[in-house]
């Protein structure tokens, strides 16, 4: 498997590390009454069949965090974006 890093180009899998679901959102602030939201954020993950947005780190390259859209069935990579701009729809 290869990923096309927006900065470094197409690179082999070994240069990247996987983190997990990119769609989870960190609760905005610390509120003791809000533990449930924090537990969801830290522990609860879906295990979808099909398209999945996930975070990968290009540690063997430019140190970018990437948002990769990947199909968990076919392993097809549909898009790779820089995580910092993925949320605002950047490149």
């Amino acid at each position, binding site marked *: 498997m290869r990923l096309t890093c927006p900065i470094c180009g197409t690179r082999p899998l070994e240069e990247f590390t996987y983190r997990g679901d990119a769609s989870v959102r960190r609760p905005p602030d*610390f509120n003791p009454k809000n533990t449930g939201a924090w537990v969801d954020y830290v522990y609860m993950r879906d295990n979808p069949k099909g398209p999945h947005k996930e975070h990968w780190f290009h*540690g063997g390259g430019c140190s970018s965090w990437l948002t990769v859209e990947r199909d968990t069935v076919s392993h097809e990579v549909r898009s790779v974006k820089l995580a910092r*701009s993925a949320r605002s729809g950047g490149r």
Partner: protein
Amino acid sequence: MTQQANRLESGGILVRERPVEFEYDGIRYEGFEGDTLASALMANGIRTVGRSFKYHRARGIYTAGSHEPNALVELRTGARREPNTLATMAELHAGLIAASQNCWPTVRHDLMSVNSALSAFLVAGFYYKTFKWPRRFWTNIYEPVIRRAAGLGHASGKADPDRYEKSYAHCDVLVVGAGPAGIAAADSAARAGARVILCDEHARIGGALLNDRTEINGQAGVEWALDAPSRLSRLGVKVMPRTTVAGWYDDNTFAAAERVSDHLAEPPKHLPRQKLWRIAARHVVVASGAIERPLLFSGNDRPGVMLASSARAYVNHYAVRPGSRAVVCGNNDDLYTTAADLRRAGIAIAAIVDSRSAQEPSDVALAGSLVSQAVGGRSVRKVAVTDLEGGARRTIKCDLVCVAGGWMPNVSLLSQRGVKPAWNEGLQSLVPPETEAETYTCAGACAGRFGTQECLAEGARAGRRAAAAAGIDVPPGEAAPFAASGPFQGKPGGQSRVRGEAGKTFVDLQNDVTARDIELAAREGYGAVEHLKRYTTMGMATDQGRLSNVNGLAVLADVRGVPVSEVGTTTYRPPYTPVTLGTLAGHFQGRTWRPRRLSGFHDWAAERGAEFVENGLWMRWNCFAQPGESLAQAAAREVKAVRSGAGMCDVSTLGKIEIQGPDAVELIDHVYAGNLRKLTVGRSRFALMLREDGMVFDDGTVTRLARDHFLVTTTTGNAGRAMEHLEYCHQVLWPKLDLHMVSVTDAWSGLSIAGPRSRDVLETVVDRLDLSNEAFPFLSAADTSVCAGVPARLMRISYSGELAYEIYVPYQFAEDFIRTLEERGKEFGLCPYGLEALGIMRIEKGHVAGSELNGRTTPADVGLEWAASGTKSAGYIGRALSAREGLVDPEREVLVGLKAVKPTQEIAAGSHLLNKRGSRTLADTQGYVSAACFSPTLEQNIALAFLKRGRERHGEVLRAANPLQKREILVEVTSPVFYDPESDRVRR
């Protein structure tokens, strides 16, 4: 030396002027360059080459390829011995030593063949049914005995002396298999402008063209094939013989094992034995050919029974006679080609047994009949032929039975990628679907297109299609046409099995699975094809069922009374054929297993006799033992030197990250527990990074070098992960923060200078900085210079519990710096110390390290709650979930110190703590020992431990039990800080 009695006078692709001597089972023989071990054994009249897996029946050479089920041998001797290699694939070379396996005492007289008499019990599911009780018999009796009886070859048990390599290749078009279709595909793809790699598992490319008599464009097919490598190389094709494409992975990435030097007695110095290629291809042409289908009849495993196509290969390619009197049996026209080829080689044809009734009978041709039984022990002696209509039997004497049951496309590689072949009634086989796939094209016999002419034409078309799919602008037109002889004759007709014969009918020869086993499995409820495979082990041998699969499915369909198309098929998985572990490991073994990181002080330390210890990739100083000193003695001496004078220790390996920018302080405040906003310029602080779940992730220091410039350090082991974490926090969690960060771990080399005289030592090297306690107190930091102008970073930080500093200089100055420091520090007793001494001092001081920060401890657990306080609004990582009930439970195990009640008694790390009275069960455990040492300062054994409600229990006596060492001692609970609890020494 024996003569090559079965060698033909002429013909074959052999270098006859180069005879090759080899040894098999202790006897010397001769063959020719160009032989395989199998063809050379055959030339010398050797028929029994192995004993079967379960029943130890004599077996002979059955094929001429990598799907060989019987001729598995051990090659070479000593450390180079390699078990389970295929004699049909091993190239003969001078000095080759081979031995048969799975037999005792010899392959001719194998005592284990009594298993055959016990066969009524060795049926499908035998292991599951028999070896269940009593339970303890399994490890002591059943398993060792079964392993000896049913094992294959034996590993050498010695380190492999040869080298293995890994290589990478990229191409537009990869062609797998170099028969007529593969060669034509590589040719046309290259002509269209594609970068092409052509791989084939055999020593020579050509596939069936080397084994059959064909004609291409007026030239003998074999000549055309032998010319192909130079023709293709001129077109720029990378031709890779002896290269098995073993696996097909995501993004058209392929693993291919190249046998670089297996055909040589020993690899030359500059070459590896094998090489693992990773090939990234835009498009792949799968031209992996087809395998002839065996026939099922009683005794179909006797030496002398072989595939008809293989018999032709031995006669035509290797110029050997596989027998002297042959019966050729099957359901298609290949019978007559085979008979003709055998006759040319001087082999008498006793009968051509054709299952189709429409054939004209002649003196030897029997129509509407099949072989129903082969009789013989170490060689077939005769066969019974049954008339399919009347059931009449006749016996025919022969020593060779060639079976031709039609052709099975070799779909292994396609199956690995999830391509599901479908049952083709006309071909009586599984054929891949005709699809216009983006990433692959299937060509030739593998696609169910047979005959030389069609394979060439289809291959050429596939090559052009592949080039276009790879993004090449293919010029219009057609590939040059071929005129070839060799029409497809393998289309099966009629019946292929006589049922109800007594004796064993083998479906999977290598795993000894019979037709009866399949019938039994179906009756016992294992009739689903995947269940059948696991219950009977059919298709689980080294060929993964390439030879047995279709016959097995046919038998299964028959018992279940359904068409074969409804039975389905199992999935093939990588590797296509076994790949040795050495090849998979490549150079990642021994000294080159992984890279080593050396600090700038390494050479100096090695000169001083340092003993090193691995820490991640780093080689760190463990101690500087003087002659006659043990590790413990050296460490004790080093501890005393630090505590009474001065010592220096390499801290270059700590992770060092610079964070710069107007918002740097924001990020620091988010990622570290506690409140770091108030950290002033020129100050350092000890700080904890937590995980979001509230557990400690890493500890280190944060130094504010300027208003918007921070230097943080991490532990050696966590340096990479901490960097990744910080980047995540910045790029994903708080992308708007205006800052940059960079790892400077390798840029700065650092020493910890510790001990009451450390200030004196430093004053000899620091250029212009007042180091007095007033001007540069504990936790001060400065950018400064040493030795007249070398830039340096100085921080007054202590891990040892003494007055101490960390000083960093640029990597390139490291060696000069330490030599200067050593020289000038002499008068203050400056002594290098290693991790062992550091480990003792940190336990004496109650400082936590990796054994306490184990991913299951909170700041409060390790007594560092002060580092995780902070304002109410502070939203640092880990804060929210730290408040969970379980993490603030007063019953939690917290850090304490332990003293052995008898000071000389050693406390074992990992011991369980138990109440002084009470049972020794896990339920009663009060905690555990995380780190222990003999303290040279306190002159007694001490430890750090986690203990339930530990803070309230100082003074209590407990038992420290270590059932592994069968030891139990008494310990007294204390504060974790044994040494200088007020921390006066670090502040002087």
